């Protein structure tokens, strides 16, 4: 059991004046601890200490280790200058003291017999690079060493502690202590994960640290639960806590054990262990008990973390396994009661888990965002022991929505027993449709690749093919980018109104801006933000906008009115850790309601002090604010406006050329022709691309034999004609004989009456007269009715409903000249 792993961590504690600086070293039996130097402790009152952390090589991310360019003996530690760790820890978490000897970089490690008790520090580590110790710290450390003497000190007390102590009774104390510390570390990490969603500042700091990609778990953070300010409990001496726990255990003992057993079981523990239920938790009488219990639960994984280092091969395990952590933690609770064997397997499993955690941390280092889900997962797993089996990896990694339910329980922060069991089942119930991931089935055959140059060109010319950069919108891009960037940096909110006719690249430009900003945020050049997009056309009702925004932000699904109140609460109350939100509102004009409250709210929130909301509103008309908005809405929208001009033919030309990027599919003249045509018509880039696409088809169709597959002007002309020629003339020419006569009769009647409207009866008389002139058999009224309704269905005529029969009024839907022109040719 003790041969698990070899790792060294120093816990250093800051004490208040009473206790002098100490270094604790927790290395034993190849297990890992964290090192810190105690600067201050205040044993008398609160029993927490301020510490200076040291990091062991194992805490340094793998990719940074190379920076050292040398082999690191396991007795060497680094002076930790990474910011973000909590230096305030509970005294109870201290395990023992060790010696840390500062060395100059050049010195080699002296050979010391007592390897478990002595460590050396040569360099400092600030999260990015290693530096030699500054003379200042060096001397300090020296001094501290002297002061301290060589009596290692164990400082075991904490709510976490009790469990370990119990364990300790069975095993060597040292090991136990170590495990405790480990546990703490683990706990911290978990805590930090929790805190990610919480709003408390300190927690946020933790999470941020994690996000920063530190490899080491949050070990250095102070334990939330232990902190004196948090709860009365933390003041209890370890012994007290232990007792308390024991009591709890006595009360809820069987259940607790069961629970733990089950989880370990999942990981391969002996089957004899009984299953545990959620109910036991509720049994806990006092909240305190509960709290301590949960604390301990959290700790246990850390134990494993120690062990885990050995099993690092299991890298292939995915995040999913994290789910199990929670269970394991629970398992660790049981040590109080269970014999050692249980503990063993728990340890083993925990080791695996810890490994996962470390793996995760590495991942986090690379992707900040990825972390959230995982933290989620671990969180939820710890809370929903029962349902976890149902968890699929997918969910854990993806669904932020999970947040919503656990949140409430998290808010209570102390994990009241009553709440957890109740809440936990929710996310996993198969019923909830929000978990459903609708998907179009995958195709069974792969899509064909473009076979020739025209097909390739067609693919690139499709509107959906997003180019790497948007040509001809550089200025607009820069303006929007600057606007959003400045707001992001200032941490304020604001609105911008973007207008332009359809197909001028408004939405595409905004997306491009957001993409660049997100990249910048990833590189830490900008504060991170979240991006939400709503589209007025994709809403069934303007008020649905609230629902969608809220769902994006928090994952909650509520009714529109409720969402509105929640959102306004969210944006109007200060939330210091809140990220900036960038909201893009497409097709703004469709959010218009009679009272305009949707628009009003949208534009009002950014003006709130704490909202940190940036709105980019997009619509077609330039004067939309003046035309449809009330004064108060328009005033809130502000005057930051931008309008996208329709593309000129040169720009269109450039767009096409850039998409084709040197492919010889189009003649230069052809591109120019289509650009000029479209620019003269609408300046709609979509139209332009569609015409080009159609032209490639025509070209392909026409030149099937000869292989000169280049789109020429003729093809373009044909495509344009096809798309824009008025269909009426053709329709009239291809109409049947009597339909044509009928149209002639209408013209005659219009001319006779001088009014552009006639009843069917009048037209009928004309029709009969015309037939007589042309020597045709005149049709009956029923036939005339049929002719008329056919023409009406094509909308060549506008006719009234046919129940008026002969008195139905008839008008032409096209100009008389067109009709004459169409009929004359025959």
């Amino acid at each position, binding site marked *: 059991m003790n041969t698990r792993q070899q790792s060294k961590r120093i816990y250093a504690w800051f004490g208040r004046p009473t206790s002098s600086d100490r270094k604790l070293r927790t290395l034993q039996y190849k297990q890992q601890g964290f090192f810190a130097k105690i600067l201050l402790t205040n044993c008398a009152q609160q029993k927490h200490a301020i510490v200076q952390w040291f990091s062991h090589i194992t805490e340094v991310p793998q990719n940074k280790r190379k920076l050292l360019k040398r082999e690191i003996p396991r007795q060497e530690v680094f002076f930790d200058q990474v910011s973000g760790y909590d230096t305030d820890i509970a005294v109870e978490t201290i395990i023992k003291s060790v010696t840390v000897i500062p060395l100059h970089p050049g010195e080699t490690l002296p050979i010391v017999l007592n390897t478990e008790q002595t460590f050396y520090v040569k360099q400092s580590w600030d999260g990015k690079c290693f530096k030699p110790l500054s003379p200042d710290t060096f001397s300090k450390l020296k001094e501290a060493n002297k002061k301290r003497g060589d009596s290692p000190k164990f400082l075991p007390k904490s709510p976490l502690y009790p469990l370990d102590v119990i364990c300790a009774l069975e095993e060597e104390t040292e090991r136990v202590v170590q495990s405790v510390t480990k546990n703490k570390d683990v706990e911290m990490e978990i805590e930090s994960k929790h805190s990610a969603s919480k709003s408390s500042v300190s927690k946020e700091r933790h999470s941020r640290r994690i996000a920063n990609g530190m490899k080491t778990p949050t070990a250095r953070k102070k334990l939330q639960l232990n902190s004196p300010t948090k709860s009365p409990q933390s003041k209890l001496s370890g012994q007290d806590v232990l007792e308390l726990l024991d009591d709890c255990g006595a009360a809820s003992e069987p259940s607790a054990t069961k629970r733990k057993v089950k989880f370990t079981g999942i990981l391969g523990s002996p089957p004899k262990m009984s299953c545990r239920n959620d109910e036991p938790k509720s049994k806990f009488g006092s909240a305190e008990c509960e709290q301590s219990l949960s604390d301990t639960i959290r700790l246990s994984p850390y134990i494993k973390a120690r062990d885990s280092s050995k099993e690092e091969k299991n890298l292939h395990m995915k995040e999913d396994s994290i789910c199990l952590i929670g269970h394991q933690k629970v398992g660790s609770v049981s040590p109080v009661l269970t014999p050692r064997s249980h503990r063993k397997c728990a340890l083993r499993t925990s080791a695996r888990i810890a490994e996962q955690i470390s793996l995760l941390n590495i991942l986090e280092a690379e992707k900040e965002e990825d972390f959230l889900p995982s933290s989620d997962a671990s969180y939820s797993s710890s809370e929903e022991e029962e349902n976890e089996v149902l968890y699929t990896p997918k969910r854990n990694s993806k669904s932020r929505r999970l947040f919503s339910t656990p949140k409430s329980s998290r808010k209570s922060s102390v994990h009241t027993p009553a709440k957890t069991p109740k809440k936990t089942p929710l996310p996993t119930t198969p*019923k909830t449709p929000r978990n459903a991931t609708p998907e179009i089935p995958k195709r069974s055959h792969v899509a064909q690749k473009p076979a020739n140059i025209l097909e390739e060109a067609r693919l690139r010319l499709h509107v959906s093919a997003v180019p790497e950069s948007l040509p001809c919108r550089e200025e607009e891009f820069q303006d929007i980018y600057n606007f959003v960037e400045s707001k992001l940096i200032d941490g304020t909110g604001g609105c911008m109104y973007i207008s332009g006719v359809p197909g001028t690249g408004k939405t595409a430009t905004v997306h491009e801006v957001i993409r660049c900003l997100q990249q910048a945020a990833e590189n830490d050049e900008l504060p991170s933000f979240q991006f939400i997009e709503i589209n007025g056309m994709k809403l069934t009702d303007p008020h649905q906008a609230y629902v969608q925004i809220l769902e994006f932000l928090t994952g909650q699904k509520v009714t529109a009115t409720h969402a509105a109140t929640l959102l306004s609460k969210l944006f109007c109350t200060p939330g210091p850790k809140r990220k900036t939100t960038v909201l893009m509102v497409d097709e703004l004009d469709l959010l218009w309601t009679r009272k305009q409250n949707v628009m009003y709210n949208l534009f009002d929130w950014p003006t709130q002090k704490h909202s940190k909301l940036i709105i980019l509103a997009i619509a077609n008309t330039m004067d939309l604010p003046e035309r449809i908005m009330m004064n108060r809405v328009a005033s809130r929208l502000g005057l930051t406006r931008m309008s996208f001009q329709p593309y000129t033919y040169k720009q269109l030309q450039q767009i096409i050329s850039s998409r084709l990027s040197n492919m010889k599919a189009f003649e230069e003249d052809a591109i120019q022709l289509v650009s000029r045509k479209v620019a003269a018509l609408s300046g709609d880039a979509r139209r332009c691309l*569609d015409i080009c696409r159609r032209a490639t088809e025509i070209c392909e169709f026409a030149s099937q034999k000869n292989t000169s597959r280049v789109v020429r002007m003729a093809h373009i002309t044909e495509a344009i004609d096809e798309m824009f020629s008025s269909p009426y003339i053709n329709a009239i020419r291809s109409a049947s004989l009597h339909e044509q006569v009928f149209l002639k009769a209408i013209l005659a009647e219009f001319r006779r009456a001088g009014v552009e409207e006639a009843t069917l009866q009048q037209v009928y008389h004309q029709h009969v007269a015309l037939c007589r002139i042309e020597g045709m058999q005149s049709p009956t009224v029923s036939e005339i009715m049929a002719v008329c309704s056919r023409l009406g*269905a094509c909308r060549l005529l506008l006719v009234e409903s046919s129940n008026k029969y002969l008195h139905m009024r008839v008008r032409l839907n096209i100009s008389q000249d067109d009709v004459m022109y169409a009929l004359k040719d025959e």
Partner: protein
Amino acid sequence: MSKRKLKETSSANGECISQVQRILRERFCHHCTTGKLFGIDQQYKHLLELLKRTTLHGESNSALIIGPRGSGKTTLLNHVLKELMEIKQIRENLLKVHLNGLLQTNDKVALKEITRQLHLENVVGDKVFGSFAENLVFLLEALRKGDRTSSCPVLFVLDEFDLFVHHKNQTLLYNLFDISQSAQTPVTVIGLTCRQDVLELLEKRVKSRFSHRQIYLMNSFDFKQYIKIFKEQLSLPAEFPDEAFAQKWNNNIQVFKVLNTFSRKTFKALRAYKLMLALRNVTVHHPLVAVADLLEASKQRSVDSQANIVHGLSVLETCLIIAMKHLNDVYEGEPFNFQMVYNEFQKFIQRKAHCMYNFEKPVVMKAFEHLLQLELVKPVERPTVRAQKEYLLMKLLLDNNQIMDALQAYPNCPTDVKQWATSSLSWL
């Protein structure tokens, strides 16, 4: 003229005839895709290529098929689909969604139908369909998740496309076209409509997203082409069991087509429908279609329905109609009321008391109401409770020509009445 009534054993003939009728009925009445398309090769190719690209390359598209009623829009699409389905790769990949503007009268219904046809409803779990908003979000998310190369292409067929245009905000169309223009699940939206001005109905944003592919079906055939279609449609297939009969039938068709010029005047109206009537006459004793049958059928088809009603009226009712006709002549189409008609009728009775029985006013009123029910006359405005029936303003829904034609054909019409109809002044 053609050969007719070849004496053969009626039993053998009977079987053949019933088979012929079955074949032809299937051809004309069912939308079966066995026949050949005529004269729309180009459109056919265009559509076929379009759908092929969607299914094979995952390219999103949108197109409208526009043509007057009966021009074969659906037939064209069915033919194309039938050919596509013969390719295995397409058959296994393509998802089809058929919507009809007459059935899916609003977006909510349409969304549900789409979800159902895509078999997505089971994903939603036991809660089959949520609110309209949820459905929209759900469907959009489903479609957004796909991408060009990996998802099944979806073909949306919107029959009576012009009716979808009237849905609120054109949400459905916007979203469909938007998907077709963005890198999501490959979709092809095919709209079928007979309205030539359908593009003008689209909202500007929707219009911008529509690819402006329009496939027009115009049916601008000349008379020879019609004859050809006609022959093809009527000819019996080669696999017809009784070869002798089939040959005879086909020969007959060939012959009488050439002779036949009857349908010149309306040949462009509808292709095959009038044939149905003609085929009714094909019986055991009259095994081959003759020109006379077709003429008869054409006459039946073009018969004036209103005039037919007049034939069944009583003399009194006919007299009332004649009175109305005179009123129309005098007042140039201004509306009249019952009292005016009654007065006019009275004038006629007084002059010609010997040939007409002088009916009581209520009896005349009854006859007038009967005409009202037949909708030969129509009130100008909706009848109110207050207005007296006698003074409600009415309009006659018959033209003078119709009345005169009907009177010509009216059996046993009194001569006086006929004379009165030709001139109201002749008795002065």
